[in-house]
């Protein structure tokens, strides 16, 4: 047993940090976040993707025989930790999964951008509120830039094509509760003004519940699909939801492609859970990277900033805030790395839960250390907080993780 990083792992991490410094350093971040800079985020993402693809970020875990790097989840976690640290934008986790699992041609090389939807439901024995889905629909990041959407459902993985497809036309906010859109004219995804300026979001608007059942039948289904089950334990069952009762489902006019039709590896039933778990661990790794970065920033600022004639880092109140951030980051680190090594479900939930908490709380504490300066747009810290909020909603919320972890005790 040696939990420490191997020399190779250390080198991999250092290499990734250098790469990101070059391709998405502080200046690029500031430019990307500048609300007044008229840039073309989709074009920039495409360029970035090619660079990341060339560096192997998306093919990291694909077999060497398939042109991949042949590394494991622990290595991926180290690399994703760096992306979180750099606040690298884009659907990195989805494209990495698509590339490393060989689900979408071109993903491994960064030639296509793949985003994802977590369309899975918590297991039936979990009585808590739905994790990751809202009655109003699901939010998907970077949909406009994406060539394909990985839909990770219950026991199945589907692929939704967006290239040149009907998903392009966006309509206005579909939240007119009184007039549910007719099935024939199911609304296309609706752009949402994202709290994170670097992560554009679309709401994939829900269909009315009465319209949902046909989905199971009128679409081509992969083996092991259990979509019909959703109406039995899904959002629609929540009391008090009466007239607005809706099921989250992809309602764009794009067609559903079961994974089996897609070139590359076909995903049998059980693998949707694996994919979702890996996505959770990689997202946790990004949160960890962010938590460690905001700690660094807070410490750096506390050393330099003077108030009352001395560096604020000499005040215990500031010192102990920083120490608390360190404790959160290192505890999350132990959970995230262990989840990557063991690939166990319980560890993965613990990793996501603790990394979400580390990222959001550290960003808030960093903001507190920065004081008024942290409240300006120019300070990087708010971007970490917003991204941390976003990631906390992706691939399993804290509430869902706590329920799973509680159930695991019995």
């Amino acid at each position: 047993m040696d939990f420490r990083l191997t020399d190779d792992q250390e080198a991999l991490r250092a290499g990734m940090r250098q790469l990101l410094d070059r391709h998405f350093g502080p200046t690029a971040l500031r430019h990307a976040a500048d609300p007044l800079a008229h840039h073309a985020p989709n074009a920039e993402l495409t360029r970035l993707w090619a660079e990341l693809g060339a560096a192997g970020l998306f093919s990291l875990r694909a077999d060497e025989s398939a042109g991949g790097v042949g590394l494991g989840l622990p290595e991926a976690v180290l690399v994703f930790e760096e992306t979180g640290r750099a606040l690298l934008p884009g659907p990195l986790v989805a494209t990495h999964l698509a590339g490393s699992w060989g689900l979408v041609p071109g993903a491994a090389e960064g030639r296509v951008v793949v985003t994802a939807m977590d369309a899975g439901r918590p297991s039936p024995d979990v009585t808590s509120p739905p994790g990751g889905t809202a009655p109003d629909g699901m939010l998907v990041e970077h949909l406009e830039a994406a060539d394909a959407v990985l839909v990770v459902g219950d026991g199945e993985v589907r692929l939704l094509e967006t290239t040149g497809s009907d998903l392009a036309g966006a309509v206005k906010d579909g939240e007119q509760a009184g007039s549910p859109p007719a099935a024939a004219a199911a609304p296309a995804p609706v752009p949402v003004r994202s709290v994170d300026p670097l992560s554009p979001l679309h709401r994939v608007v829900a269909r009315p519940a009465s319209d949902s059942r046909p989905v199971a039948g009128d679409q081509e289904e992969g083996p092991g699909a259990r979509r019909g089950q959703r109406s039995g334990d899904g959002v629609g069952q929540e009391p008090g939801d009466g007239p607005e009762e809706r099921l989250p489902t992809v309602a764009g006019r794009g067609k559903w492609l079961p994974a089996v039709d897609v070139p590359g590896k076909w995903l049998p039933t059980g693998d949707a859970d694996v994919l979702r778990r890996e996505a959770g661990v990689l997202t946790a790794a990004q949160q960890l990277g962010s938590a460690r970065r905001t700690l660094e920033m807070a410490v750096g600022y506390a050393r330099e900033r003077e108030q009352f004639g001395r560096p604020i880092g000499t005040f215990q109140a500031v010192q102990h805030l920083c120490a608390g951030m360190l404790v959160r980051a290192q505890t999350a680190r132990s959970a995230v790395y262990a989840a990557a090594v063991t690939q166990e479900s319980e560890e993965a939930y613990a990793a996501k839960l603790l990394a979400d908490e580390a990222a959001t709380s550290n960003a808030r504490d960093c903001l507190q250390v920065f004081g008024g300066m942290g409240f300006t747009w120019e300070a990087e810290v708010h971007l970490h907080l917003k991204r941390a909020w976003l990631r906390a909603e992706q691939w399993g919320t804290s509430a869902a993780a706590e329920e799973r972890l509680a159930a695991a005790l019995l």
Partner: protein
Amino acid sequence: MDLTCTPEEEEFRARLRTWLARELPTLPPRPDPLDWPARRAYDMDWQRRLHEAGYAGLHWPEDAGGQDATPTQHLIFLEETEAAGAPYVGAGFVGLLHAGPTIAAEGTAEQRARWLPPILSGDQVWCQGFSEPDAGSDLASLRTRAVRDGDHYVVTGSKIWTSHAEVADWCELLVRTDPEAPRHRGITWLALPMDAPGVTVRPLRTLAGSTEFAEVFLDEVRVPVTHRVGEENDGWRVTMVTLSFERGTAFVGEVVACRRTLRLLAKRARKTGRWDDAVLRRRLGRLNAEFTALWRLIQWNVSEAAHGLRHGGTGVPAEGASVFKLRYSHARQELYDVAAAVLGPDALDLTREWTRERLSSLSYTIAAGTSQIQHTILAERVLGLPKGR
């Protein structure tokens, strides 16, 4: 322990309600939040109406043109206007709550006659130039210099966190006139005309993406010595006098609004089904206790302030103010964290009001004395613990 209002206070409340019911429907539509001149016009229109109805400068002394109302009346005024959905003080804030009271207390007869009436009538807008990038929590370390040149001060430096700077007529400015004196002893209070040559205003974008604050750059701006309130180098004391005008009423409107938000959150959660999440529901219940107590804390502080004023004191004691600020800052942040839990993924939608409020609530533990500084104030000044080193 009397929480009932006197007949006079009840009459005041009834009269105000009647007036609000008549006046509010005649208001123009709210302006675009990014259109500063329109916002100034809207806020000043409201101030003019208050002035005509006899509600302007409610808490100002009578000899300054105010109503000399008791803190309780002021509390009632703020409670009722917020409950009725009346406009907030807006662009009138600094004039009515900071600069005005300072001039009323420390200004010469001429200065009072010149500056106070237009504040009350809604004709002139003031902004505040206290904070500097390097003087945040430690305000007294401010470095904006003012050098005497005949009957003028020549002012150079920069100020930050100035709201309404774009549309203000005047700025209450703290400058350093004696760099050799101990920190608090070399500061002077000046009234700066915002149209003076050398004044540059640059909007400051906050993390919420909005630009309600600005930076003000001062490049050899000439301010007549007659614009000085109080003595040269006595500006710190002059400013503290203003601050002591606080009568525990500063957050009345906000707490009324938070309690309304809390009820809306509960209803929204019920509607979306998230009410069935006991963790969320009980957080809402706890916040109900929290804001109930905060409301009572306001009443306690107002009672203390009223008592103090009746006996020649000034405003609310440090204890009440710091206790309230610490607890309220935290409760407000928790309120909007809970709002995010109610919204779920939709909390990521920046067009949601609760999401924007969540972002702006982040400043509450920082602005006007960080939570860390409030704790130290309580420990050393109220509890009498020995001074930290």
